[in-house]
């Protein structure tokens, strides 16, 4: 489109200067340019493809080099830890362990019920992605071992 004031059919020098500036800033891929500038850039390319290619070629080389440092996928361990953190119960702390020991001592709770509470808390712990420290895990295991009432079978369903 020829404008009054000296714009040539191939675009003005000012158009090409702006085009070169955008290429230096955003690279050769017009789709990565700000949306507001894309249509005008494509129109200019259409007017003089050879000149546009001359401008874009150097930037395309750099773009291609930068693409040689691709994203490295996150490790499976990280993925699992992140998923676990989404399901994390409140981390077992000293108060929780004391509550667990209390539950296991209650005659009203059958052995199975007490173990169900324990299992539930252990599952929550396992899903907490490391929120329970090793020391606390040991304390929990110790609490379970010492507080299970004598003679109660883990599979018992009735009151003892």
């Amino acid at each position: 489109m020829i404008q009054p004031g000296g714009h040539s059919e191939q675009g003005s020098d000012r158009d090409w200067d702006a085009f070169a500036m955008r290429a230096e800033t955003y690279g050769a891929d017009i789709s990565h340019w700000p949306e507001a500038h894309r249509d005008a850039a494509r129109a200019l390319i259409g007017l003089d493809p050879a000149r546009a290619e001359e401008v874009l070629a150097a930037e395309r080389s750099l773009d291609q080099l930068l693409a040689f440092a691709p994203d490295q996928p996150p490790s499976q361990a990280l993925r699992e830890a992140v998923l676990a953190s989404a399901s994390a119960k409140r981390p077992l702390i000293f108060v929780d362990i004391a509550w667990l020991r209390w539950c296991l001592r209650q005659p009203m709770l059958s052995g199975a019920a007490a173990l169900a509470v324990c299992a539930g808390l252990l599952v929550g712990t396992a899903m907490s992605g490391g929120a329970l420290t090793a020391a606390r895990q040991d304390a929990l295991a110790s609490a379970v071992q010492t507080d299970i009432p004598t003679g109660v079978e883990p599979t018992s369903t009735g009151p003892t």
Partner: protein
Amino acid sequence: MWTLAGERTSVGTDDVRSLNRAAVDPDEDLVRRVGQGDQLAIRTLVNRKLPRMTALARRLLGDAQEAEDVAQEVFVRAWRQAANWRPGGGKFDTWMHRVALNLCYDRLRKRRETLMAEPPDIADSSPNAEHLLQREDLAAAIDRALQALPVRQREAIVLCHYQELSNIDAAELMGVSVEAVESLLSRARRSLRVSLADLSRTS
């Protein structure tokens, strides 16, 4: 806005940013379901965003383990935020980027980062240049060149080129104007072009 006729229609940065905030958030429904504890939504969010957060942190920090630590912390905060997320205040992806950037800034400050004293170990035109064409060596050379950039330039190129954020989103995250982001991008690309010139020739 720039037109072929040479007219420049200036659009206030604030106006554009307001429009940006009003733009539809493609993650809005997903975040709402995450906030409700939907396990499928949680997995989807992780699949969608974890690679982005890890890549952002790795390119800014230059350390894979630190990047994973940052990414994990971003998601710990994301789970809390999802339950309270109110649509219309911006994109969740932008919020996650903001959290990741702040965490990276903290680590960079602690690290007392300085520019590399020596230029990156980039190939010259000697016969040894051939081995650098191996992909791993090339990737390592490019990573070193990125790490050699001043932090703000690196940030601009990571956000705009690698994370493919708009210049408006990048400017908002970096707390600068769009023009400042463009200046940082130009300088970063210029520096990279120089430091990677030999690689460009041999490849």
